[in-house]
């Protein structure tokens, strides 16, 4: 460990704001790029499952009414 105490580590020799801001932005950008395609995929599957169910229901109704 390069720093003497945890408070020193947070302060970063007076440059804490700059350093932590950078790492915070990086965490946001990286997690956005992982979460956004995952959410998109989830959304796709939900939508397609609904569509499939709707189509099947309509097919059954057509069969039921001659």
């Amino acid at each position, binding site marked *: *460990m*390069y*720093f003497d105490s945890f408070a020193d*580590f947070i302060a*970063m*020799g*007076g*440059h*804490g704001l*700059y*350093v932590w*801001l*950078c*790492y915070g*932005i*990086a965490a946001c*950008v*990286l997690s*956005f*790029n*992982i979460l956004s*395609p*995952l959410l*998109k*995929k989830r959304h*796709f*599957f939900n939508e*397609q*499952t609904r569509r*499939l169910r709707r189509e099947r229901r309509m097919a059954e109704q057509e069969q039921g009414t001659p």
Partner: protein
Amino acid sequence: MAISWKMPKWFFQLGSPRWFYDISSKLLPIFAVAAALLLLVGVVWGLAFAPQDYQQGNSFRIIYIHVPAAILAQSCYMLMAVAGAINLIWKMKVADMVAKSCAPLGASIAVLALATGAIWGKPTWGTWWVWDARLTAMLILLFLYVGVYSLHHAIENEVNAGKAGAVLSLVGLVNIPIIKYSVEWWNTLHQSSTFKVTERPAMPAEMWIPLLIMVVGFYCFFAVSLMLRTRAEILEREKRSGWVRDLVEAD
């Protein structure tokens, strides 16, 4: 006598969305674990164990985000242009989807490189922004990403959108060597590259080893994110095909 040379079979397999979807589901966990481990080790080492710079103090620790982001933003652009070219020449669907997925990803990484650069500039140069050659070229890279992204989304027809995006990304490729050599061609405020192929880094090993780990970690992250985006795009475009329907049924 004309020599005819054919591209190998695996090259055209890459063009099959289904094949890409299957192979990427096997590769994803490997790269995800590698990215998580490398980034964790790199961040902890860079933030807590690397010594501080004798001139810049602890603000130099921003390098562990800034340099990998800047390198990745340029690599991503080159991949986008190459994928665009493959799409133009062989009309390969997957290449088009990869190129389309590169644009928002690259743009966000370019924003990260510019933002961390600006934040680093404040304590080091005393200003957030200067119209320096390196910074300006990097800003143009961001605009090129935004342009390619807009083209892909503004044109209704996917084939035409892909072509337009590919042409813009190929034209914009000229910016890459400008970014690389800007610190040598013009007298700039920006310091020169940390890593060079021909020389040893001008910093001690306990400073550049975590940087190298972060660069590799960013590349692994890029592989994960690009595969995830491309897979989402494949599903959307192939939703009428039987194998996607089977996937939905199984879900």
